């Protein structure tokens, strides 16, 4: 089996230490977490972890089984990129003078469909939301001009298919 990208979605209680417990499952199997996002989910009190790994399906499945085994985890799933709608966000901090001195910068902003979040005397900040490769391409385009700071968020994703979790969570809400 070949390695590919998997998005692991974990619905869990929002408790201290659970992140450590979940990340330990990857550590124990020597699998790197490529991206991690923790947020609230569609249900109050229920957290959602979105974890991206590059691994075989066999490992993705076993890891999901181990995650789901944890007492405070409600349900976990894995999906391929084709099965999800996913995005990442990135911020680029760039010297303000480039905006005026380098004509190409303005083209990059337009072509990349990114937004200017703020402009100050010394720097301006670009925000880009999209797929990882789109952000990579924008990064590569801007890099020759100098990037003062760069940060990218973890992947966030929703599944294309209905999550069977919905009914389980609905029961939670009614409790």
């Amino acid at each position, binding site marked *: 089996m070949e390695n590919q990208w998997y998005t692991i979605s974990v619905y869990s209680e929002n408790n201290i*230490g659970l992140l*450590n417990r979940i990340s*330990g499952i990857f550590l124990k199997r020597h699998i790197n977490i490529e991206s991690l996002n923790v947020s609230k989910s569609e249900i109050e009190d229920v957290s959602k972890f979105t974890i991206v790994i590059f691994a075989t399906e066999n490992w993705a499945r076993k890891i999901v*089984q181990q995650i789901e085994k944890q007492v405070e985890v*409600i349900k976990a799933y894995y999906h391929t990129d084709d099965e999800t709608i996913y995005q990442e966000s990135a911020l680029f901090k760039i010297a303000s003078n480039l905006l005026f001195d380098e004509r190409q910068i303005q083209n990059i902003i337009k072509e990349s469909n990114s937004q200017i979040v703020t402009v100050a005397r010394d720097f301006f900040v670009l925000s880009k939301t999209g797929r990882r490769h789109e952000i990579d391409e924008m990064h590569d385009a801007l890099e020759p001009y100098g990037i003062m700071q760069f940060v990218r968020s973890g992947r966030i994703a929703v599944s294309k298919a209905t999550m069977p979790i919905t009914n389980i969570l609905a029961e939670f809400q009614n409790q």
Partner: protein
Amino acid sequence: METLRAQKKESKKKTPIRISGAEAIIHCLLAEGVDLIYGYPGGAIMPVYDELYKFQDKLTHILTRHEQGATHAAQGYARVSGKVGVAMATSGPGATNLVTGIADAQIDSTPMVCITGQVPRHLLGSDAFQETDIVGISTPVTKWNYQITKASEIPEIMAKAFYIARSGRPGPVLIDITKNAQFDELDFAYEKCTGVRSYKPVPEPDLKAIEAAASLINNAKKPYIVFGQGVILGEAEAELKALVEKAGIPAAWTILGLSAMDTDHPLNVGMVGMHGNYGPNVLTNECDVLVAIGMRFDDRVTGSLDTYAKQAKVIHLEIDPAEINKNVKADVAILGDAKQTLDLLLPLVKKNDHSEWKNEFDKKYQIEYDTVIKNDITPTKEGLTMGEVIEQINIASEHKAVIVTDVGQHQMIACRYAKFKQSKSNITSGGLGTMGFALPAAIGAKMGAMDREVVAIAGDGGYQMTIQELGVIFQHNVPVKIVVLNNDHLGMVRQWQELFFESRYASTVMTNPDFVKIAEGYHIKSRRVVERSDLKDAVTEMIASKDPYFLEVKVEKEDNVFPMIPSGASVSDIRLK
């Protein structure tokens, strides 16, 4: 805290009483039916020990000589009694000394609750004296853990701890309690936990899967059962026996499944795994249907997975969904508690007889008997063998003893040759292979089954890892029988060095102390056997003793345990010599 609420709370609330957190912990333990705990005091747990002093008529605390001993004793207690074992320690080194036992309980699915003291809430993260992040450290080896920082959390968290430790696939739970939470007062009322919303301990059995399994079993020519500890934990011994007898299926055990079925049952064909029996290993690759019950296909059971039971349809009865398809792909997976699923399967299975197939096991047994067993149990050479000692224990105890083993050659020999009539009688560190397990675990086992004979068997290596627990045996006059099979080596490692490292005995030769004198130092009756002619008498005397008894048997220094599946080899390639 809101998210930790338990399900289905009983409506009738008891009137709360105003007590300290430390006293609340004692009330929680009593409410859970705990009457015995093992532990070691220290600064951060002192308020709880102060309450233990006040409640000593209701709750016995056994001071082990090391916190690791407390965990193994709690494990031994849990494994013979089926109840939750409890260990307690202070913060820092007290807590970290528990980790080996917790890891052992995790991999061998033993219900245990560990309570550790912690520095006060306001000192957390300040590198205070004896502060250690035991919740962080124990996370990968606990089923669940939690740090209590407020006294008011105690009843609910303790109830949850016991519920999680004992339900579903059991395991260890660690509760870390800051010192302020022990001193502070709370309005105490206890309600047992009956459910945790994010946790489903026992999956619902799938009737379609059970039907599919029955059909495979009914049509099988060479069906074969391998059972593990799931049968013991699920108290499904009678159901297993009924299935084996009705369908006429030969059944073998994993090391932790041992004693779930009478070792003398005609359809009990022996042990699988690295040092298991010849037939049960080789015939794994000849059966047509493999029924795995409450076992997890550990690498020591399967050898190389690429060549394991590839010809067979695999039916896997298992309580833990994470075990399905983890190591061996199941053609039919039956999730659920072993007792429940076997009960559902049994009526669908046709009465059958597979004596021709069973005959294959008998033939293989004869080969193993002639090349290995005969020489182990009834040796003709001068040196004593471990096997003949086990055989004498079988005879003297009439197959009724609880046998607690350490880790290594003696463990494999004991598990190969010990005879059992009753379940929950074989206590050993299977998954983790923790040397030093036997002596403290035997203390716990004896206290968990006072009416039974408990024999600890250890090698000279493992015995010295927790030898200080002789102090507990002496102080409380715990009538366990201790047998050290002394070959002056770390025998199993030495065996591997001989077979795979051209006999380079790196750090496996032991210069040992006078074990008899050490036991005598603890006022434990002792005897040493160096001649075969003394063995029977010594073992008989030991078993007959009403008091603790230590027996050292000087065995052949360089004996090997066979059969053996070399690491990574196929079960078919098991070596008889």
